[in-house]
C-alpha cells in the first residue's frame, strides 16, 4: 500500500502562473525517493502541497488513502510528516536544541522536558551537531549547520514521512553522505518514507526511486 498518492494534481499561483499540471505518482513506505528537475519546475511547490501548507487547485493528494485537504493540517504537519524546508525555517533566536524541543512540544510528545532535551541532543549529534553547537543560537550557526538542525527537527517526533527540500544543498560531500546514511537507515530499518528534492547526483545515485518531475509535469514549455 502506498503511503502517498498524487492524483491529477494541478497547481497554479495566484498570479495565474501554472506550475504543476496533472501530476500522478505513488510513494511507498521503506523507500527513499529523489524528486529531480530543473530549478523552477515546481519541486518546492509540490512539497508544500504534500505537507499540507497549501492545497492543489485540482486533483488529490492521498496520505494513507485519505485526502489530506480534508485533514487537520496542523496536526498532520506536527505528527505525520517531517519537513525540511529549503530555507530551513528555524527560529533564529532559539538554540538548536530549543528548536528541536519546540517541535516535539508542538507534536505533543509525551516526554519530560529533560528527556526531550536528551533526545534533541542525540538527534543533533546524529546529524553532526555537537553539544557545544547544539546550545548555540541558530543565528550563530553556518548554513550547513542550520540545514542539519532542520533535519534533526524533522525527525524529532518520529514522523512516517520526511519531506526534505534540497537537504544537502549546503553540505560538503562528507556531511552529505552522513545525511544519506541517516535517511537510508530511516527508510530501510524504520520503514519510513523519505522524499528528497535534490540536484545532487550523489543523492540521486543512492535513492531507491527517482521521480523526475519535469517528465511528469505536462506544462506547455512555450510559456
Amino acid at each position: 500500500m502506498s503511503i502517498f498518492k498524487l492524483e491529477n494534481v494541478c497547481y497554479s499561483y495566484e498570479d495565474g502562473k501554472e506550475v504543476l499540471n496533472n501530476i500522478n505518482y505513488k510513494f511507498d513506505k521503506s523507500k527513499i525517493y529523489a524528486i529531480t528537475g530543473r530549478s523552477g519546475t515546481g519541486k518546492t511547490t509540490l512539497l508544500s502541497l504534500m505537507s499540507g501548507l497549501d492545497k492543489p487547485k485540482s486533483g488529490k493528494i492521498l496520505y494513507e488513502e485519505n485526502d489530506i485537504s480534508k485533514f487537520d493540517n496542523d496536526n498532520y504537519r506536527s505528527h505525520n510528516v517531517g519537513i525540511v524546508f529549503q530555507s530551513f525555517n528555524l527560529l533564529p533566536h532559539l538554540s538548536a536544541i530549543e528548536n528541536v524541543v519546540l517541535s516535539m512540544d508542538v507534536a505533543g510528545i509525551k516526554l519530560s522536558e529533560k528527556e526531550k532535551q536528551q533526545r534533541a541532543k542525540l538527534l543533533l549529534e546524529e546529524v553532526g551537531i555537537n553539544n557545544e553547537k547544539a546550545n548555540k543560537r541558530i543565528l550563530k550557526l553556518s548554513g550547513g549547520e542550520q540545514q542539519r538542525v532542520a533535519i534533526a527537527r524533522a525527525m524529532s517526533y518520529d514522523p512516517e514521512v520526511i519531506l526534505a527540500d534540497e537537504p544537502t544543498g549546503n553540505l560538503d560531500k562528507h556531511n552529505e553522505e552522513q545525511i544519506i546514511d541517516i535517511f537510508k537507515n530511516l527508510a530501510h530499518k524504520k520503514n519510513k518514507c523519505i522524499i528528497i528534492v535534490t540536484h545532487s547526483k550523489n543523492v540521486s545515485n543512492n535513492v531507491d526511486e527517482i521521480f523526475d518531475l519535469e517528465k511528469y509535469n505536462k506544462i506547455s514549455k512555450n510559456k
Partner: protein
Amino acid sequence: MYILKNAIKNITRTKSRNILIGIIIVVISIASCVALSIKNSSEKLIESYKSSNEIEAEITLNRENLKGNARNSKQQNNTSISEFMNNVQRLNVDDINKYGQSEYVKDYYYTIETELNSSNLSKATIEDENEPPDLKMPNMNNMKGGNGTQNNKVLGDFKVIGYSSLNAMEEFEEGTYKIEEGSIFDINSDEKQCVISQDLADENSVKVGDNIILVNPNNEAFTYEFKVVGIYSDFSKIEEFTIFSNSANQILTSYNALNDIYSKSLENSETNLNLETNAKFILNNEDVIESFKSELTSKGLSSNYTVTTNLETLENNLKPIKNLSTFVTTFLIIVLIIGAIVLVVIGMINIRERKYEIGVLRSIGMKRYKVLLQFIIELTIVSFVSIIVGTIIGSLLTVPISNALLKSEIESAKTSQTQVNNNFGMEMPNKMEKGDIRNNFAIESTNYVDKLNAVIDIKTILELIGIGVVLTLVSSSISMIFISRYSPLKILNSRT
C-alpha cells in the same frame, strides 16, 4: 504548558520591546489609577453627601405670579393691591398637614410665629424704649406668610415661635443655639412652657422655673403665663452694632402651646393675632421634587406660592467635586484612546518583527489559537506587571493629585462667585442664619465639599483590571488579525 514556557522565554528574549510596551502601559495605568480612584471617590462622596443632606422643600410666595394676579384683579374687580393682598390665602397648618401627607415626603414639620408683649419682661434692646414701635424696620419675614401690611395692628415686642417638632429646631441641631440651663420644653404638650435667650434672661433676671407673662398686643386683657424651662445661648454671628444676640427677643415654645393662644385670639377680630406659618418638607430624594410640586398644585396650592428646595445649594456645594469628576473622566478617556492607538501601532511593528516567527510556528504544525494564545500570554504578563507597577505608583500619587485638583476647582468656583459679586459692585456678604427655616435657601452660602479621600477601593481595582484586559486585547488585536488571516506559507513566502 510549552506555550507558557515559550511566552516567558520570549519576554526575556525580546526585552527592549517589552520594556517599551511596559512603560506605555505603566503610564496608562498610572493615569487610569489616579483618574479612576478620583472618579470613584468623588462619586462616593457625592452619593454620601446627597444621602446625608436631605432634600428640603419650602413653600414661599411667588412674587412674580403675585404681582400679575394683583394687577389682573385690579383691572377686573378694581380691588386695590392691599385689598388683594389681604385676600391672598395664607398658609395654615391644615394645608401643611394636607401637603405633608404625601408618598414623596419623608417627614415634615412647621413653625408658627407671632409677636406678643409681656407685662413682666422688658425687651433686650439698645434703642430708646419710648420709641414708637411702628418706626421699627418692617420685618421682612412678614411679607412671606404673615399678615404683613394686612392691618394696622400693633406689633409686639417679642417674637414667639411655636415648633411642631424638635426637628424643626434646626438651630439647636446645628449648635447655633445651645441650652445653657434647664432643658427644652415638651414639644408635644400644650402646657405653657418656653425657653428664652440668655440675653433676655439676663436683662430681666429671669431664672429657670420662673414664670413670664405674655400679653396680646392688641388687647392687654389677654395674658398668658409661661414657665421658663430653659435658657439658651445664641452663637450666630451678630451683624448689627449691638450688644445683644440676634435672637435676644425670641421666645420659643411648642406649636401646641402657641396655637392655643392663637386660637383663643381668633374669638374676637380685635384681638386677632398675626400668624406666620412656615413649613419644611423632607422629600424622599431629589427625583420626586417635580412630582411633589405638581401634587401640591393638584392639592390646591395657589399660583401665588411656589415650592423651593435646597437642591440648588446642594448641587452648588458639589460643583467643584462634580467638575473634578467630569474632568478626570474626560482625561481618562483621552488617555485610554491615545494609549490604545499607541499600543496598536506597537502591535503593528511587533507583527512585522515577528511575522517570520509566526510563520515558522505555524509551519511546524502549531495551531493558530495556540500561537495566538502564546502572544496573548506574553502581552498579558507584560501588562499585568506594568499595571501593578502603575497602580502602585498611581496610588501614591492619587491623594496629592486629587487634593490639588479639587483645590483648583474650588478656587475657580470661588473666583466665579467673586465675579458675580463684582457684577453687583459689592462684596456679597454670606448672610445666613443657617438652618433657619424662615430663610430662603438662596442666600445660604456655599460650603464647598472640599475634602476628597481618594483611595483605591475594590471597584477601582476591578475597573483597572478591566482596563488591563481591554488594553491587552487592543495591543494583541493586530497579532490576532494577522495570525487568523494568513496561512503559514503566505507568511513565509512574504518574508522580506
